[in-house]
């Protein structure tokens, strides 16, 4: 509770993006002290995570889409959205924003949605975790097939 996860996806749908465009957003995010998700593929391509700098040799490469993932306190939601708006104007591609947060005790979500609506978004679609997962005891089985979902 109290945190908001952002997925800032570049190039989707079907437009594509060059890494130099992604780097502009990463630089801007790093400048305001946002930390990048460690297990994200884009983060793994950074030569300097603290500044959001990507590897020099891939900057001109083009990919179908790529996602930068960050997590910030809920109080920073508006600041991050406005920052994305500012930077995306300079990019030669499209951006798809996703914003995720925990619901309250009774499944309500009355914190982030009002912020987004105040910013002008009409919330239509979401992926909803219905909370049926449970922690299971570890086994020595090999890791499962990973899926990008």
């Amino acid at each position, binding site marked *: 509770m109290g945190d908001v996860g952002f997925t800032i996806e570049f190039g989707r749908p079907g437009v594509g993006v060059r890494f130099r465009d992604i780097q502009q957003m990463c630089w801007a995010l790093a400048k305001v002290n946002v930390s990048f998700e460690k297990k994200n593929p884009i983060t793994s391509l950074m030569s300097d995570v603290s500044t959001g700098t990507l590897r020099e040799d891939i900057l001109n490469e083009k990919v179908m889409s790529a996602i930068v993932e960050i997590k910030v306190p809920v109080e920073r939601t508006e600041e991050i959205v406005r920052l994305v708006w500012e930077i995306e104007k300079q990019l030669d591609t499209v951006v798809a924003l996703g914003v995720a947060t925990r619901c309250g005790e009774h499944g309500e979500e009355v914190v982030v949605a009002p912020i987004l609506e105040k910013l002008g978004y009409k*919330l239509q679609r979401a*992926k909803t975790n*219905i909370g049926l997962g449970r922690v299971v005891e570890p086994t020595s089985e090999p890791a499962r097939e990973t899926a990008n979902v």
Partner: protein
Amino acid sequence: MTNTLHRFGDAASFSDDYIVFAIPSKSNKDPNALPKLHRFLEIAMEYKPVNLGDARHGGALRSSKNLGPLAHWNRDMKPDFQAVIKGLTVPTTCAAVFDNAHAAEQFVKRIKEEDLGMSVNVSTSIEGAERCCNYACIDRHSVGYSLGFEGKTEKIPNSQVTTLSTMCGHGMISHSLAKKMIDFVKENRRTPEQAATYLSRFCSCGIFNPSRAKRILEDARTNSK
């Protein structure tokens, strides 16, 4: 990847689009993950899904390496749901796609009762997912909103094309193919059912909704010049 999150359309356009995912533990701590996923898919069959998907092997309609020109006339267009269930050999993300709220609500309720212990997500309109949860007496755990597309949106094609192509979030359904299918339907060279079938085969997760696609294609045929 959020392969179903950014489907194009307003909330009303998702009234026939409900995707329910089951996701086993990422670290494979659950030795029963595979039978649980099989159970998930088998239960889904009871509620007449329009697609089933295994993120490793694909959906109920798949592409083929052995096609000739005669495929235009004699290819089997029926979705093979049993192939998805039988083909699931490793624990991975599985999905069931429904084209009506009632089926989705009943399925979610049933999955709760089955108590499989796997993470389950519902991807549809916010209200649609809430109704599924209410029907099943579930409190939502978390929610990931789609804020839509921004930036150089002039690079995105028209709404009908985008609505079709974004039903595969991995971008496996090209804008050009979606446009071609719309044109084929408008020219009466293919029925909406056939065109939806062609598009569905390119979605390798099995989360494409052929029922919604058919509606969009039918709409393109009847409501546009």
